[in-house]
């Protein structure tokens, strides 16, 4: 094997072979490549094909989406919800990650488990539990009435607020873990050096620590945004009709066998996601430069 070659210079007998086409490696890769080809590449290409060819190249489906007001408003709504959830997630999650990172190593692992357990709970079940929490006779309404904030139950379920709340609960752990892993990489001597050179704790935080953790945090924002864009369970369960997202629209059209339209929506959704992710990354770089 190749990584023995450096040592074999002294001990010799193993002949050094470099830049030979690695047949063994390719054989090892084949099963995964086959799996991805069958269940990832071909289906994805098919979405493009079905969305754009009917049977010849046509922008009919795309045109229908871009000229229908309700579709456009679902697009805008999905991007808005996802962006708000992603940015709120970073603002709320960053201090949580900072707290975990500031504890001794052994405790950090235990605190992380508290974040990991909700992360691996089913999205469906978490959305369902928000239905139960926010319902007319739900826990939150009972608490509000007990505290005499209101006299009659308030409408909490089937509102946009419910969608934001549930999605934040579902995706916050992703952001916390992204920010946390960025923070563990930071060389804390740099922060101490800044303080030795006369920076106050706040200055060291703002101009050294936060910029150094920015890249990972922004990656978290992008990840949460991408995950939100595909959501359909939560808005369908806790939102009102006007809180429907692109995922719900795709699902509706597949069930009505409008595959071309469903594929075109999915395609535009992916494109929109990629564009916004690039913008998020650019905004992150701009922010970092501004802070330093």
């Amino acid at each position, binding site marked *: 094997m190749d990584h023995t070659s450096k040592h074999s210079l002294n001990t010799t007998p193993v002949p050094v072979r470099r830049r030979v086409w690695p047949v063994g490696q390719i054989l090892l890769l084949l099963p995964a490549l086959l799996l*991805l080809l069958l269940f*990832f590449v071909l289906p994805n290409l098919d979405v493009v094909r079905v969305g754009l060819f009917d049977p010849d190249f046509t922008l009919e489906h795309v045109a229908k989406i871009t000229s229908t007001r309700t579709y456009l408003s679902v697009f805008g709504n999905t991007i808005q919800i996802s962006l708000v959830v992603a940015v709120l997630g970073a603002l709320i999650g960053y201090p949580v990650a900072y707290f975990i990172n500031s504890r001794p190593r052994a405790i950090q692992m235990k605190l992380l488990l*508290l974040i990991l357990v909700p992360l691996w709970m*089913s999205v469906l079940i978490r959305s*369902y539990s928000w239905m139960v929490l926010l319902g007319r006779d739900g826990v939150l309404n009972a608490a509000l009435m007990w505290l005499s904030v209101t006299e009659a139950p308030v409408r909490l379920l089937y509102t946009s607020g419910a969608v934001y709340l549930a999605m934040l*609960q579902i995706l916050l752990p992703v952001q916390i873990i992204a920010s946390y*892993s960025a923070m563990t990489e930071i060389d804390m001597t740099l922060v101490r050096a800044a303080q030795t050179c006369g920076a106050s704790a706040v200055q060291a935080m703002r101009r050294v620590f936060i910029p150094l953790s920015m890249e990972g945090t922004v990656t978290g924002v992008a990840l949460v945004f991408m995950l939100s864009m595909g959501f359909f369970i939560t808005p369908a369960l806790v939102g009102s009709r006007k809180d429907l997202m692109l995922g719900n629209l795709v699902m509706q059209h597949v069930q009505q066998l409008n595959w071309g339209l469903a*594929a075109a929506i999915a395609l535009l959704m992916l494109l929109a996601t990629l564009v916004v992710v690039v913008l998020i990354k650019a905004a992150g770089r701009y922010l970092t430069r501004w802070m330093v």
Partner: protein
Amino acid sequence: MDSNGRAHKILAVYFWLIVLFLLLPIFVVIPMSLTAGDLLRFPPEDWGLRWYREFFASHSWVQATWLSVKIAVIASLLATATGTLTVIALDRRDLPLRSALLHFVSSPLIIPHVFLAVGVFVLAVKLRLTNNEYIVAGAHAAVTLPFIVLIVGSALKGVDRNIERAARVLGAGPVRAFRTATLPSLIPSMLAGATLSFFISFDELIISQFLLSSQETLPMKIWADVRLELKPTVAAVSSLLIIVSAVAIIGAEVLRRRMGPPSSKSTV
């Protein structure tokens, strides 16, 4: 108290409030599932295991659970096997296109499942393979592959490869050296990865929903039920799932940290 200490106190309170928020569903759903009444109440007026009995006595709930288990087992075995082989292949630094391949096998992570689900569905219709649980399992395996590559890959990075080199110097062939020296340190992370893929597949709704028609997985059944009425059976199923998945995930995590190579400990 100095201001630093006070800031730390505030941060600690904030941390525990957020943890409470994240764990709220567990604190609510489990007690509610223990009601003996017909309605979901918090806290329940009469306690009992009525809805758990209802779940185990219901043919359709049990069947949906088994179908989900079957699909998830196939998907996680498939993903763990192919993912581990991929990690071993990509371990060679001078492999042509190495980083492109790594990006490629990670890409199912960022594609929305809705997008993938439409594609698999349309292909399956064309090949007359809808309502086939193996196709669902294959699609689930593709979706969870990146997690295996991530987890096993980070474990492989932490393994002391000198042991394998020593085995080679002592005359073992490359396969035997790998199998006896390196593979044992990878097994905890393979198990952790397999557990994770099992639950990702178990929880997956949209691909199953599009592909299956005459049979339903557990999430499909929950989805259909929840939209009709809030019956406590769903709370009982949810509680069972919460407990089983929490125990399994914590178990796998602990196992991986205890037995895995040291440098993989910080990755999640």
